[in-house]
């Protein structure tokens, strides 16, 4: 009753129901039927309630169920780009309209939509963190040199590693290939903004040599085609347990998908053990 009526109305209406229950319904109908009557009466209030009287908690919950659930389904079905788009549009619309409502005297409504936005952002962060946590729990073992790492579109593998040691560093030249798994047509791989890098057991990150193509995975392949390339990393001589992995650079579209906005540090994606 408190969720669907104004606070003072909820108090009064609960009193009316209680009075009816005690003075006539319970004595005439018995406990079970009286309880059923009470539940049906409350259901009647809920069914007839006006959204303007709903409590912020109920509004937020319904918003999350009515908005978050379909959006979640879209994410699962079509990838995370749409949820980011909807989130950004919704946030901008809210942050523009809230001050306008506030200045035009509709402060209660302004407060309510800000509360809804806050609840949604909290929900988003919780989901992002959950996604990140699940990814950690299902962490895959790293592949080795010569082993394919496959996704729907194709397979990636480091075929050979050449090392050139100097006094202060080791230059790693990785020869790799990317193969299309498609049966027909051609496909552009989503490698734009995808950074390949190596890291060691201390978490130090080693970027591609400046002379190399910085987006080596941004390629278009015909069905069944394979591309071979070489990339170079300059790694300090004391680096141990080296892995190759990839991640979208900050502020690229993909980098803002759920999982990347989580409160937990994002785990490395698929990895290949180099040394």
């Amino acid at each position, binding site marked *: 009753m408190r969720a669907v009526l104004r606070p003072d109305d909820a108090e009064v*209406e609960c009193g009316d129901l209680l*009075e009816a229950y005690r003075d006539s319904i319970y004595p005439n109908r018995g406990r079970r039927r009286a309880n059923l009557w009470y539940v049906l009466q409350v259901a009647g*209030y809920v069914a007839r309630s006006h959204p303007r009287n709903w409590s912020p908690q109920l509004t937020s919950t319904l918003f999350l169920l009515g908005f978050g659930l379909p959006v979640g389904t879209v994410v699962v079905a079509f990838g995370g780009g749409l949820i980011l788009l909807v989130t950004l549009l919704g946030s901008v619309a809210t942050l523009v309209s809230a001050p306008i409502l506030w200045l035009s005297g509709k402060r209660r409504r302004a407060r309510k939509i800000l509360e809804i936005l806050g609840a949604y952002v909290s929900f988003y962060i919780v989901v992002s963190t959950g996604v990140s946590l699940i990814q950690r729990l299902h962490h895959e073992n790293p592949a080795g040199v010569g082993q394919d790492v496959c996704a729907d579109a194709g397979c990636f593998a480091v075929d050979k590693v050449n090392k050139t040691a100097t006094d202060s560093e080791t230059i790693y030249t990785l020869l790799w290939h990317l193969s299309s798994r498609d049966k027909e047509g051609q496909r552009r791989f989503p490698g734009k903004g995808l950074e390949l890098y190596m890291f060691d057991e201390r978490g130090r990150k080693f970027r591609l040599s400046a002379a190399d193509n910085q987006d080596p995975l941004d390629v278009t392949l015909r069905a069944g085609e394979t591309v071979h390339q070489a990339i170079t990393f300059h790694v300090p001589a004391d680096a141990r347990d080296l892995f190759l992995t990839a991640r979208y650079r900050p502020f690229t579209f993909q980098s803002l998908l759920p999982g990347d906005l989580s409160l937990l540090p994002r785990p490395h994606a698929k990895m290949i053990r180099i040394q």
Partner: protein
Amino acid sequence: MTQVAGAYNIGAVAETLGTFEQAILLSIVRLREGAYGRAILREVQERLERDVAAGAVHGTLERLEGKGLIRSRLGLGTPIRDGRAKRFYRLEPAGVEALNDARAAFKNLWHGIRWPLKTYSCETM
């Protein structure tokens, strides 16, 4: 709209009050100072001779108050309500006028027709 001299504005009444709203307003008239939610519910149920949902009465009272036909004030609670406040209602002048219009419209609509209707024929006129 064509209006019979001295008659009430039937169109306006039809737009203003429904049957259930009239029942609620008349309950408030009958109950006078004792017109609060539970009492109105009981009165309406007795008059309409059927069960009425408390939520329906509450929704209608809220709507009538929104139209300016009634007004309400909070009163003290009683032990049977665990001390919860009662909301008492009383008619505003606009509510009295709306009821009068409704009654007049009802009479105008039935004017010249014998009641109760048995079978429709020109003899009923």
